[in-house]
C-alpha cells in the first residue's frame, strides 16, 4: 500500500485515502480529432515498466486531483504535483534524473509547468 503526499493539503497518507485515475497529461481529443487521434486518446496508454506519470485524487481528504511521478517497478515516488500542470515540475524531473538517469527524465518531461 503506497504512501503519497497530497500537494494541495500537504498530507502524507495511505493509498486507501486516495483514488487512482490512470495516466496523466493526456490531451483531450474533441469532435475535430481524427480517428487515429481519438483512438489514441481513448485507448492508448503508456503502461511503462519504470517511471510513470499518473493521476490521483485525494478522495477521502481534500478532494483534489493531483499528479504523481512514480516507478511502476519499484514503487518509488519521485514527487507529486498539482493537476494544473502541462508536465512534471523541474524539481520532480531533477529527482527522476537523479534516480533513473537523464534519459528517463527526458522521456517524461513535457516542458515547463503551466501557471495559468
Amino acid at each position, binding site marked *: *500500500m503506497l504512501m503519497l503526499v497530497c500537494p494541495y493539503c500537504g498530507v502524507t497518507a495511505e493509498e486507501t485515502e486516495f483514488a487512482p485515475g490512470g495516466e496523466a497529461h493526456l490531451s483531450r481529443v474533441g469532435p475535430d480529432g481524427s480517428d487515429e487521434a481519438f483512438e489514441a486518446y481513448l485507448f492508448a496508454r503508456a503502461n511503462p515498466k519504470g517511471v510513470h506519470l499518473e493521476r490521483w485524487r485525494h478522495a477521502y481528504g481534500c478532494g483534489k486531483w493531483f499528479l504523481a511521478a512514480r516507478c511502476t517497478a519499484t514503487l518509488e515516488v519521485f514527487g507529486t504535483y498539482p493537476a494544473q500542470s502541462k508536465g512534471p515540475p523541474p524539481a520532480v524531473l531533477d529527482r527522476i534524473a537523479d534516480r533513473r538517469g537523464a534519459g528517463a527524465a527526458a522521456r517524461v518531461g513535457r516542458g515547463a509547468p503551466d501557471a495559468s
Partner: protein
Amino acid sequence: MRLETGGRLIDRTRPLRFRFDDRWMTGLAGDTLASALIGQGRILMGRSFKYHRPRGPVAAGLEEPNALVTLGTGARAEPNVRATQTELFQGLRADSQNRWPSLAFDLMAANDLVSRFLPAGFYYKTFIRPRAAWKHLFEPAIRRAAGLGPAPKAADPDRYDQVYAFCDVLVAGGGVAGLAAALAAARTGARVMLFEQAPHWGGRAPVDGGTVAGGDPAGWVAAAVAELAAMPDVTLRTRATVAAVHDHGYVLVEERLTDHLGGGPGPRRRLWRIRAGRVVNACGAFERPLAFPGNDRPGVMLASALRDYVVNWAVAPGPAAVVVTNNDDAYRTALALRRAGISVPVIADARPAADGPLPQAARAAGIRVATGTGIAGTVGRGRVVAVQLCDAGGGGHVTETIPCDAVAMSGGWSPAVHLWSQPGGRLRWDEAGAMFVPDPDHPPTGAAGEPIVTCAGAAAGALRLPDCIASGARAGDPAAAAPPAEAEAEAPLLPVWVMPSGAGPRKRAKMWLDFQNDVKVSDVELAAREGYRSVEHTKRYTTLGMATDQGKLSNVNGLAVLAQALDEAIPRVGTTTFRPPFVPVTIGALAGEARGAVFQPLRRTPLHDWHAAHGAVWEPVGLWRRPYCYPRANESRADAVAREVLNTRRALGLLDASTLGKIVVKGPDAGRFLDMIYTGAMSSLPVGRCRYGLLCNEQGFLIDDGVVARLAEDTWLCHTTSGGADRIHVWMEDWLQTEWWNWRVFTLNLTEQLAQIAVVGPHARKALEALGGMDVSKAALPFMHWAEGTLAGIPARVFRISFSGELSYEVAVPADRGVELWERLVAAGGPLGVMPYGTEALHVMRAEKGFIMIGDETDGTVIPQDLGLGWAISARKPDYLGKRGQMRPALADPDRWRLVGLMTLDGSVIPEGAYAVGAGRNANGQTATEGRVTSTYFSPTLNRGIALGLIRRGPERMGEVLTFAAEGRRVQARIVSPVFHDPEGKAQDV
C-alpha cells in the same frame, strides 16, 4: 513416546486432557498438539491431499505441511491448523482431515494404488470430454477426494481486533538475530517493535547449543528480552506472526491472543497494521528435506524438528532414529538424541568424508557414521520401521536394512526470505550453502527509493551462531558491537537433490518434494519433459509449493530438480514469486470489526425512521436504504406495489426522493461548463426553468441523467440519479480540476442537505394548496418550472417535474424539516386519499411512461440515440463530452439495438434479461439474438405485463412479434411504443 527426563518447554506437573478424533489423551502444559500426540505414540496426523497417503509431522513449527487438523467444533471450528504450532490447552479438541471414514483406515487411499495414473496435471488431460461432465461429474468428485479441511458453515462468533501502529524499526523474528537487532536499534533511541511467532523467545539457539556472551544462549536471550522490555519505546509480542511486508513498509502482523487458552474474554486475534520505517527480517531458515524414496512415511522428519521434539518437549517417535544428511548440522540432532537416551544406529552422510568437529563428536559418542551413504527406501505401513541404506551416488542397490522408529533428514537450509522477497527484494544463489540468500545490492525499496528491509541471521544466510547474532546486531545498528558467541565449525555441505543420485524412474516416483500437495521428483521431471520450462508454470502444473507451503519446504528442492531436468543452473531457473501472507492469516482478523451492520456505512434519508415505523420493506440503492413498498397487514409485496401505483395514478402518492443527487454548479463559466458536461444546452435554460439532461462519457455512452434547474444567472442545480450523485460530482470535479482548470466554476454536492419529497397524482396540487404559502397553480408554476417560497411555514423549493406521468411536484426543504413536511403532507392528504409509495411503484410508473432508468436501459454500451433521446442532444453545440465518441461508425450503425416497448401476446410478464431470438446462429455457433429486455413489470394501470427492451432497428419494426427466451421458456411479444400510458402526456401537464 515421552522421555523420562528433559523437555525445556514442558511442565510435567501440569497434565492437560485433549481429544484427537474420537480419543481423549493427556499431554503436558507447554506441549504443542503435535508434541503431545507424539508423546502419546501417535505420529499419524493427516492424509496427503491427492493420494491420501498416511502422514506424520515433518517439521516442528510453522512450515509443517502434513499435520493439519481442524481445531474446535461448530462455528468455532478452524480447518487446516498446523498441529505443530497449536499450543495445548485443557479440553482441546482436534480432528484429522481429508480422510474417510477414519484417519487410520481411509478408503480414499485407493488413490495411492493408482497413483501411477494420477501424475502431475492428470486432470488437465483426463477430464476433457464430454465437456459438461467436468462441471457436473469430474470436478465435484475430485474436489471431494482432494482437499483440506472444510470451513465452518456458521458465522464466526469470535471478535477480532485491529490496531494501527508506527515504528522506526520493525523486527520480524525473536531468535538471537532478531533480539540482537532489536537491542542494537533500541539502544540508538529508535522506536522498535519486535514480533515472534512462537510463544517463547530465542528461536533455535537454545536447542542448537553454542555459547553467547560466554554462557548458554538461553541466558543471553532472557537478559536481552528483559533489557528490551524495560525500554520505553520498544513493543514486544510473542505469538505474533509477521504475515506480510507490503509497499512502502506497510506490515501486517497477526497476533494470537486467546487461542492458546482455548478462548476467553476479549478478541481472539489482533491484526497489527503497521507503517515501519524499516523492517529487519530475522525469520530464520527452513531446513530442507532430502528427496529419497519413501521420504513421506510417518516418522521421517527434518533433523532440526526431531531435535526440537526431543530437546523442547522430551518426545520422540521411538527409541531409535537414523540420521541422514548432507551437512554437519544434522550431527547436532544425533548428539541431542544420544544425550536424551535415544539410540542412533547410523548417520548416513551423502558426503564422501565427514571430519569436522561435529562428526568427530558423534564418532566419539560411539555413533556409527556411514559416509557416501544414502537411503534407498523406507519400510513400514503407516509409520517407518526401517530404512534401507545404499551408495549415495548409485542407483539404489540396498546394502543394509536398519530398523528404526524415526528418520532425521537434513538437506541443508533455506533462508526464510519471504518478507524480503514479498516487497521486491532480489535473491542470489549462494553456491557454498546451496541456497538462495537475499542480495543486499537489490533490496526492496520504499517511497524514496530507500531500502526498507534488511535480513539478519539465518534469514540472511548467516547460519552459524556467531555469524547469526553478529548479523542481527549489524542489522539493528551498523555501529553496534555484537555479543561474543561461539559454535562448532562446520564443513561445507554437499548439494543433494535426489537420493540416491542414480535412482531410476520407479524410485523417483516415490521421492516427495511437496508432502502436502503430493508432488514428487517424477512429477517435476514430467513437467519439464512436457515443456514447462518456467518455474512458475511448473508450480501451477504440478501444484508444487501451493496451499500453506508457499515454498517453505518444497521450493529449493523442487526447482533444483527442475534445473537438473532442464540441464540449467539453479539460479537461471530461479524461484517462484513469494506472495503474502508468509503464513495463513485468518479471514476474521483481516475483516476485524468490519462485518455485519458495520461492514459498510448505511445512508439514511431524513425520513428513514418514518418509513421504518410505517412498515417499509427496504431496497438497497448504493449505500442508501429506500422503501421498496409499504405492505399492509396480510398484503403481499406485489399487491402493495399495485395498490401504490393505482392510488398514485388515481389520487395522491408521496415518494421520498431525498436520495436524488443534487449538485449545485455556480460561477461565471458554469453555463459553458454544463454545456460540455451535458449533451443538451444548459446555458440557454432560463432562470426558473427545468430541463432534462443526459451525461455521457468520452466514449459516447450514457452514464447518468436528471433534471437541471437554473437557480440564478450564474447558478444551476443538477439532479442526478440516486446512485450517481457522488460519482457525477467527482466526474465534474475531474474535468474542472484537470482539463478546464482556468474556468471559473464551483460545484457543491448538496444531496444530504435537502429532504426531497415527490407529491404525485391528480390531487397533488390540492395537497400543496392545503399546506398553504405558495401559488402552485398551472399559471404560476407550469410544467418544467420551479419556484421558491414557503409551504406550511417551511422554506421550500418546488419543482414541477414528473417521473410518473402524473401531475407532480418535487419539494425540497432543509433536511431537518423533511419529517415535518412529510407529516404535514400525510395529514393534509388524508381526505385526498394519500398513500406513500416506494421505489418499485416508482419503477413501474416510469416504465408505463417509457422513461429510461440508468442501469436498466443502460449498461455502459448504450448511447442516448439508442434510447430515442436524440432530442436531448444539442446538434448546434460544437462539442460536449461524448460527442466525438458518438461519431464512431459502430455507434451510428442503423442496426443498433434501440428502445421499444414490448407487450406479450398473452399478457404475461416477460422474464428479466430475456433475449429476443434471431434467425440462424452467431459466429460462436450459438442461437442468434436480436435484442433483449431491459425492464419488465406487471403494470397495474394496464393490468398486464409490459416491458422495455433494446431491439435491432426496433423503432422501425412496430407491430412485429418476436420470440423471447429466458428461464427455459419462450414468450411471444409484440413491438410497441415504449409509452404505454397516457402517450399524449395530458395527465402531467394540468
